[in-house]
C-alpha cells in the first residue's frame, strides 16, 4: 500500500514542448525544454534536481540516454536511469523515483520523454513485428493492434461503430485543447471514409507519429508545501507485463490492465467507482475499450457501448482522455497523459475542465499489448 510508505509523493511540476512537427529540435532538446518547463511550473531550478529519469526515445535506442539529458541540463544527479517498458515507462519511472526518494537517495526527480520521430527518423515505427513477421507482411504497430482488435471484436462483440466513438470522443476533447495537433471534430461517416490502414483499422483509429517532449517533477509532500502549485498526490501504482509476442500468448486480445489496475486500486485503497476521470493510453481506438474493461470499470464487452453512450465525454459519468489523448493531442507514448491528469486535478483545463475532480487514473501501455502500468492521482491532502 502506498500509504505505508514513510511519506506521500507528489507531482509538483509538469511541462512540455509544442506537439506535432518540431523541425530543428533535437531529441535531447525535446527532453531539456520539457524538463525546464516542468521546473518553471514547479518554481524549482536545475539546482534542485538530484535525479533524472527518462524513457528511451521510440525512434532510436541510444545508450546512456538519461546521463546525456542530465549533462544537457548541467545536472550531475545522484540517481539516473532510462527504463525500457516502451509506452508504460512513464509510470514505471515514477515508481523508480518514489523508490529513490523513499530510500533517501534523491529528493527531487525530473522525469522526461522527448523524441522527434515526425521530422527525424520514423523507420522504427514501420518495422516488421513478430520475429519473422516481415515475410508474413506484418509491418507497423497499426497492423498488430488491428490483429488484437479483430480478435477482441470477435470475442466480446465490440463493433466498428464503437471504435469510431472512441476516436470521435477524444477528438471532441481535443477541440478544446490548444496544444492538440488535431482539433477538428469529425462524424462517423468521415471516420468510415478515412482510408484503410489495416482492416479493421481506418486512419482515424490510429494515433499520429509526433514530435514532442513532456516532463514532470516528483518530490515529497513535505517539499511540495514550500512550492506554489497545488501538489498532485501519487496514491497508487500498478504494473503488469504480459510480455510475450502478443499473438503467441494465451489471451491475445487482453493487456496487463486487469492485474495492473487491481494493483493500482489496492495500493491507493480505492475502488474503480471512485475514479472521477481517466487518461488512457489510446495509441489505437481498441485500447481504451480493452483497458476500461480489464480494469473492471465496465464489464468485458461493454467498453465500446460505454463510449457510444457518451459516458466518457466531459460531463459524462467518467470523462476519458480530456486532452484528446494520443489519438488527437499528440501521438507521443504517454508522458503527456500524466501532464493532463495533473492539470485536471489542479483545475487548470479551461473549457475542457472536468467538474471538481478529486481522483484521476492514468494508464500506459507499451509494445503490442506487451507492457502495462496504471497510476492513481489525487488532489486530496492529508
Amino acid at each position, binding site marked *: 500500500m502506498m500509504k505505508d510508505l514513510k511519506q506521500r509523493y507528489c507531482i509538483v511540476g509538469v511541462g512540455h514542448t509544442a506537439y506535432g512537427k518540431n523541425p530543428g529540435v533535437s531529441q535531447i532538446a525535446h527532453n531539456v525544454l520539457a524538463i525546464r518547463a516542468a521546473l518553471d511550473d514547479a518554481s524549482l531550478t536545475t539546482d534542485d534536481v538530484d535525479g533524472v529519469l527518462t524513457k528511451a526515445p521510440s525512434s532510436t535506442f541510444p545508450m546512456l540516454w538519461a546521463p546525456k539529458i542530465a549533462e544537457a541540463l548541467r545536472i550531475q544527479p545522484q540517481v539516473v536511469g532510462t527504463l525500457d517498458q516502451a509506452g508504460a515507462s512513464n509510470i514505471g519511472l515514477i515508481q523508480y523515483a518514489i523508490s529513490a526518494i523513499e530510500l533517501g537517495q534523491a529528493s527531487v526527480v525530473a522525469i522526461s520523454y522527448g523524441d522527434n520521430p515526425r521530422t527525424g527518423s520514423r523507420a522504427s515505427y514501420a518495422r516488421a513485428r513478430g520475429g519473422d513477421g*516481415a515475410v*508474413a*507482411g506484418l509491418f507497423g504497430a497499426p*497492423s498488430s493492434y488491428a*490483429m488484437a482488435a479483430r480478435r477482441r471484436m470477435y470475442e466480446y462483440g465490440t463493433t466498428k461503430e464503437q471504435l469510431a466513438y472512441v476516436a470521435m470522443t477524444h477528438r471532441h476533447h481535443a477541440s478544446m485543447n490548444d496544444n492538440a495537433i488535431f482539433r477538428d471534430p469529425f462524424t462517423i461517416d468521415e471516420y468510415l471514409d478515412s482510408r*484503410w490502414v489495416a482492416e479493421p*483499422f481506418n486512419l482515424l483509429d490510429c494515433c499520429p507519429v509526433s514530435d514532442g517532449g513532456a516532463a514532470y517533477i516528483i518530490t515529497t509532500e513535505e517539499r511540495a508545501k514550500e512550492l506554489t502549485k497545488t501538489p498532485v498526490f501519487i496514491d497508487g501504482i500498478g504494473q503488469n507485463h504480459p510480455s510475450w509476442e502478443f*499473438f503467441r500468448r494465451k489471451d491475445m*486480445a487482453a493487456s496487463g490492465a486487469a492485474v495492473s489496475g487491481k494493483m493500482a486500486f489496492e495500493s491507493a485503497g480505492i475502488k474503480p467507482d471512485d475514479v472521477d476521470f481517466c487518461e488512457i493510453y489510446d495509441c489505437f481506438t481498441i485500447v481504451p475499450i480493452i483497458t476500461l474493461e480489464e480494469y473492471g470499470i465496465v464489464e468485458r464487452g461493454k467498453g465500446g457501448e460505454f463510449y457510444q453512450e457518451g459516458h466518457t465525454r466531459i460531463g459524462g459519468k467518467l470523462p476519458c482522455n480530456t486532452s484528446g489523448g494520443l489519438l488527437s493531442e499528440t501521438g507521443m507514448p504517454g508522458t503527456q497523459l500524466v501532464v493532463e491528469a495533473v492539470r485536471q486535478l489542479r483545475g487548470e483545463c479551461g473549457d475542457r475542465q472536468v467538474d471538481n475532480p478529486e481522483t484521476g487514473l492514468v494508464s500506459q501501455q507499451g509494445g503490442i499489448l506487451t507492457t502495462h502500468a496504471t497510476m492513481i492521482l489525487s488532489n486530496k491532502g492529508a
Partner: protein
Amino acid sequence: MSEEFSEFGELLPEINAINSPYWDGLGEGEVRLQHCKGCGVNQYPAESFCYECGSTDLEWRKVDGGGEVYSFIVVHQPYHAAFKSFLPYTVAIVQMDDGPRMLAAMLNLDAPINIGDRVQPHIQAINNERSVLMYEPTG
C-alpha cells in the same frame, strides 16, 4: 517460384544453426517444428531450449501444419515494396492443430476469410534457395 516474389528475399530471416531445419523443411515442401521430448509440446520459433519446461532435449518433427484462423487483418498501407503488387493483402494468425500460432500471409484470396476458418499450409517458393510458409483456405 515467380517474379512476383522477387523482392521477398530481403525480408527472409537469416538461416542459422537453430532455425535451419525449419527452413530446410520448407525447401523440401514440408512444415517442421521443434518437439520437446521433456513436455511434448511443439514450438515455434526454434530455440535451444523448450519455452514451456526449459528442457534442452528437442527434436524436429514434420507436422501437417493445418489449423484455423485465430485473427487476421487486411493490409492497405504500402509498408514494403515486396507486398505492393498484392495490396490489399491478408495477414493471418493461424492456430495450428499441432501447437503454436503462426503468423502468415494469405495472398490472392478469392473470398474474404473469417476467424475460425480452416486453413492449410501453402509453401511458396521465393527464389532458388528459399521457400516461405503462407496459408490458404482448406478446400
